[in-house]
């Protein structure tokens, strides 16, 4: 039979061990979320990697100033697509998700007057009340960008309109030219 330990020491040690592991894991969680900054239209840091995620796309999405209350929380980029998730202080967490893919199924969405250059816009309202849920697609040669809105109840659908207006499409040629000018003589 061996001596017992005191409780204070145990608490202190388990707190240290717990803290270390939790800090490590939380650091991962936080850092993964911070991995890719929001794709801005001014600096191209994340624009290049997003362009590489859909190499066929002739147009590439980027954000101008987001409306008040909206913030980008995660940007996941891989060889198939880019997914940007946004939170809103009014519409709720994950209220809007932007996807950039090679192709998309517009389904029952109906054509609508587009405001993004040559891209064809399609809209679909899944639900207007009590909470707004809808889709907005921009389809262009070699790619597609689409919004999925799923707002908390009581939030006006005009939030979606304001947010969608922050999205801009730039041409791949323009980005390639910018890379050649400021980085190296290669295409994305």
């Amino acid at each position, binding site marked *: 039979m*061996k001596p017992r*330990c005191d409780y204070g020491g145990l608490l202190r040690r388990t707190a240290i061990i717990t803290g270390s592991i939790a800090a490590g894991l939380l650091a991962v969680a936080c850092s993964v979320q911070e991995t890719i900054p929001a794709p801005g239209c001014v600096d191209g840091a994340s624009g290049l990697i997003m362009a590489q995620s859909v190499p066929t796309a002739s147009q590439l999405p980027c954000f101008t100033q987001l409306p008040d209350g909206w913030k980008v929380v995660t940007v996941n980029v891989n060889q198939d697509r880019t997914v940007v998730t946004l939170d809103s202080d009014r519409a709720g967490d994950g209220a809007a998700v932007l996807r950039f893919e090679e192709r998309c199924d517009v389904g029952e969405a109906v054509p609508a007057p587009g405001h993004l250059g040559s891209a064809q816009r399609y809209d679909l309202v899944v639900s207007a009340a009590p909470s707004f849920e809808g889709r907005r697609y921009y389809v262009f040669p070699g790619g597609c960008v689409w919004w999925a809105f799923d707002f908390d109840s009581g939030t006006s659908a005009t939030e979606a309109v304001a947010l969608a207006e922050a999205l801009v499409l730039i041409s791949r040629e323009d980005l390639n030219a910018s890379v050649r000018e400021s980085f190296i003589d290669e295409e994305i």
Partner: protein
Amino acid sequence: MQRDDASGPLRLPSPGKPPVTEISSSRHGHQRRRRPSGEPPPLPRELNRAAIGWLIAFVFWAAIWVWVFLSDRAGIWITEFDLRLMAPVVDNRVAWLDSVMSTINEFGTHWFVALIGWVTLLGALLARRIRHAVLLITTLALTAAAVTIVAAEIGRPRPLGMTRLGDWEGFAQPSRPVALLAAVMVACTLTLVPATGRTYAHWTTGIVLVIFGFAQVYTAVDHPTDVAAGASVGVALALVFYRTIAPEAVFPITYGSGKTAHLDVTGARGEAIRRGLRRQLAIEAIEIEPVGLEGSSGSTPLRVTAADGDVLFAKLYARSHLRSDRSYKLWRTLVYGRLEDEQHFTSVRRLVQQEDYMLHVMQRVGVPTAKPIGIVEITPDREYLLVAEFLDGAVEISDVEITEAMIDDALGIVEILWRSGLAHRDIKPSNIMVQDGQVKLIDVAFAQIRPSPWRQAVDLANMMLVLGLGSSPETVYERARLRFSDDELAEAFAASRGVTLPSQLRRAVRADGREMLQEYRALAPHRSPVSIQRWSFRRLALTGWVVLVAFFLGAVFISNLGDIGLR
């Protein structure tokens, strides 16, 4: 200052003579000496060369990242260098190799880390290497955190102007899948592979990383420097964490009958023990060999043969012994509560001091035990050697036929302990030796002064159980009545039950087949069992804390499985 001998009077050095560090001589004719400031201890704690090498590689890449972060030009130069380096590979792709490399890329990116990670984690848990399991998770978490944070700051795209054939995610520098694969393979090696097989395992890791790294470059998913940096981060973090927190010398990976608490006393440690014995106790050891490992789980017992023919007993204590003991105490505290008022040992130094002190106390009160000789510092605060008299010719009491004289001797020892206000607290067959027909009590590390009455009663019960194994409960009980009252004997067996028996004694009683405890209880006057459940606010709080911590860690772990490559 100088001494004439170890116990002699102090003598001031003569004026004008240079100061010396040798302070005593011994019966062996060697000199004891004080370790001067700046001289390393016998076994310094240090990273091995491989870990230092990879750490330097990590620092090199960290410097590159800072350079790239501060200068756009640096990023351009490195990218041009990378593209020139990989162009011959990418430009000369062959169809049959494309699918092979794509498969390797896919397997390495999505499956390999999870597969090796889970095998390592489950293997560590099955082998009760909790420390290694925690290290695996922490290493993967910190590797993932490091590469994602750096990647976000550097913001490097995938290779430009090349068709990518494989899967990827996020920025390129440093390569996240290569870093995680490197970390998990090194962690797997250091968790599951014994030291003798490490060379092959490390070569395997190297070959796998080279193949996977080449696949990453071939498929144009990563630049060559992304692969190199990722491998450096993964290997360096895993090696440094494991070498620092679970060094092989202290937490050896063994399989089979070897207990994890037992340390290897060959190689560098063997040399350190010899050096320490020579310098600190003036003992020239010519042979050091483990002895009685099967009965010991809290230390590494050794037999030391000195140059002059003397044979000594030594016990090597390291931090692993403290930690395994701490885990045992936590479990017992949660399950039974506060059975007795005791403090845990906070350092190896204190543990070895306690045993040395208790050996002296036992000698003083007349308990027959090994005479203490001294303590050798192997690594300050981490590893110590307790040296004592070797009970030459002594055998474990379970290996001899127990006579009435031995029963009287053994019960007499408990009587001395009771009378002197002491408890041994670890009475089991391997701690009761018989030398020339005389019973001796050893391993007093956990003995206590002024213990609780319950603890003393348990000592008596355990001693009677040990004696009963080699004779009969009736005989032992009759001899015990000559020294203890019926009430005291009843109290002993009312206090005793499975958990109060050291595990070796519990196994022996179970193997014996007789219902020994019940037989003793039947012989003694009836007494209600002494409850060993102690409920208190502190116990409840501790239990709540442990549950909360387990829940919290489990939740954080599960929610991050994907991020650390385990899903």
